[in-house]
């Protein structure tokens, strides 16, 4: 009893401290290194390096890491599939397709001549289509698991199929789009944290706050759902309803993140798993801890990506893929869910 609550306390302290530490570190580190003192003094002023470049990027990274991790934790629970995550189920790819569609065909975004950057003109239309795209993946996976009792591995294979379908569709749009658009749509293939403005950050923040509040409210229902549906029903839980609402909200949160930052893989898989294995599978802890850990992971990955080959910035999606893919294969080999 004492040992267990000590483990929870320790995890809490370690996780929060490392988030704060990596937050301060990534404010300091960059093409122009600052000391922590300089950072604190420029936070008080309107220094452009901090307020226009580093802070928006870091806040975006924290929010996106947290959102993807919490979505992954919820999906793994409600689908009873430890390999589930926005990325492995093809939900992120569906969202990226929807977002690219809105930009190319509905004129929701503005491509710059350099092909390097993109300005989202309509920050509501793009997420709307991204959400719509993610729902296609969700409904395919839900239908398949209804018709046939899919094993966790088979469900992920269906997700992989959806992911490649959406990637192909996105590429097809690029193929017919103007040259300048091509490079900018690549943006959704590799997640990049450096393009958001404060308005977009507020949108991500609101979505994160609403969805996470719901997830925390449902934490005991998720615990009940780790047992069989029959047991959950006998405890007064409505599995169908909790599952549908949670899946819609986690897809929505994923879609919002993808709309503004592109596809970032494996955070939603790695963060909840690390917590489940090392701390607790109880959703009262799993949900908040995964959120904090996901934010920290992505922040470290992004800071690494923008400093390791400086002045070249490596999109964070590439960094997480290099770390996440081996972990995914390891999980597959371990079969630790059985």
């Amino acid at each position: 009893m004492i040992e267990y609550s000590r483990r929870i306390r320790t995890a809490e302290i370690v996780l929060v401290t490392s988030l704060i530490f990596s937050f301060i570190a990534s404010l300091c580190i960059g093409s122009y290194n600052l000391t922590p003192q300089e950072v604190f003094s420029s936070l008080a002023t309107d220094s452009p390096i901090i307020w226009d470049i580093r802070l928006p990027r870091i806040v975006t990274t924290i929010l996106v890491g947290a959102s993807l991790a919490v979505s992954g934790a919820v999906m793994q629970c409600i689908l009873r599939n430890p390999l589930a995550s926005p990325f492995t189920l093809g939900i992120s790819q569906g969202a990226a397709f929807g977002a690219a569609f809105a930009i190319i065909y509905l004129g929701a975004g503005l491509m710059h001549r350099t092909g390097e950057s993109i300005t989202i003109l309509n920050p509501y239309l793009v997420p709307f289509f991204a959400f719509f795209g993610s729902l296609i993946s969700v409904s395919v996976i839900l239908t398949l698991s209804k018709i046939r009792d899919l094993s966790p591995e088979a469900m992920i294979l269906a997700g992989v199929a959806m992911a490649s379908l959406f990637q192909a569709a996105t590429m097809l749009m690029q193929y017919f789009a103007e040259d300048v658009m091509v490079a900018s749509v690549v943006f959704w293939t590799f997640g990049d944290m450096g393009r958001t403005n404060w308005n977009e950050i507020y949108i991500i923040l609101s979505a994160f706050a609403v969805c996470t509040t719901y997830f925390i409210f449902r934490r005991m229902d998720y615990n009940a759902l780790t047992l069989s549906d029959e047991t959950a029903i006998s405890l007064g839980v409505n599995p169908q309803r909790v599952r549908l609402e949670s899946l819609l909200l986690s897809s929505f949160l994923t879609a919002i993140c993808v709309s503004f930052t592109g596809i970032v893989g494996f955070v939603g898989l790695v963060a909840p798993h690390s917590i489940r294995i090392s701390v607790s599978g109880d959703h009262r802890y799993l949900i908040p801890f995964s959120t904090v850990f996901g934010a920290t992971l992505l922040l470290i990955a992004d800071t690494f990506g923008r400093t390791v080959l400086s002045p070249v910035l490596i999109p964070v999606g590439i960094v997480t893929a290099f770390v996440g893919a081996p972990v995914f294969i390891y999980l597959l080999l371990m079969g630790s869910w059985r």
Partner: protein
Amino acid sequence: MITVKNLSFSYNSEPVLNDLNFEAREGEVIFILGPNGSGKTTLLKCIAGILKPRGAILVENQSLNDISKRELAKKLAYVPQRGDTGFLTVFDVILLGRKPYMGFGPTNEDYRIVKDVMSLLSLEKLAFRRLNELSGGELQKVMIARALAQRPRILLLDEPTNNLDVKNQIEIMRLIRKIAKESNISVISTMHDLNLASLYADRILMIKNGKIFASGGIEVLNKENIKAVYGVDVEVVRMNGKAVILPGD
């Protein structure tokens, strides 16, 4: 306590249960016996409110249709056959038994009840082990503990002694009787082992093809009924008011 009237149930127009009537009283241990596929588990699921049958089920004189799932969970607990497993700890799972009573989260009262139940079943040592590290007997005890944490008036058990060794079987059976008598709970359990049933039952329901073939005290476990329900020849030896069933020739 619980009354079942004219209960029928079909899976995709395939009739499984056909016009069942019985009742369970306080503190009574009832075993439902019958061959595989006779509808025992379906009957339990109907009473637990998981399946929607035709007919009436009254729990403390209230129709099952008029009680919300959450309210029902405070009166009636169900332990399915296949042991649930996963990453939760024993403590977390037993705490789930308090779910129907919870507002936003567990209260000190909930934690106290979980501790009481754990000490009743001597599970304290396992409290922070994960379910997937437990043996079959331990898992079954945890699931019963979770059900008891619901503080139910009625306890439904599906094959509680399946895959358990003799020691665990006897332990679980004694425990179930003790709980029924001490807390005045009615226990309805399906069972394959006729000898265990004859040792620990107050009343027996024998089910054949979705109908009640015989019901009553352990005297219904006789040669003729067993032949009719299971289609096997047996010898029934009476010892100290208990029946021992042996395969005949």
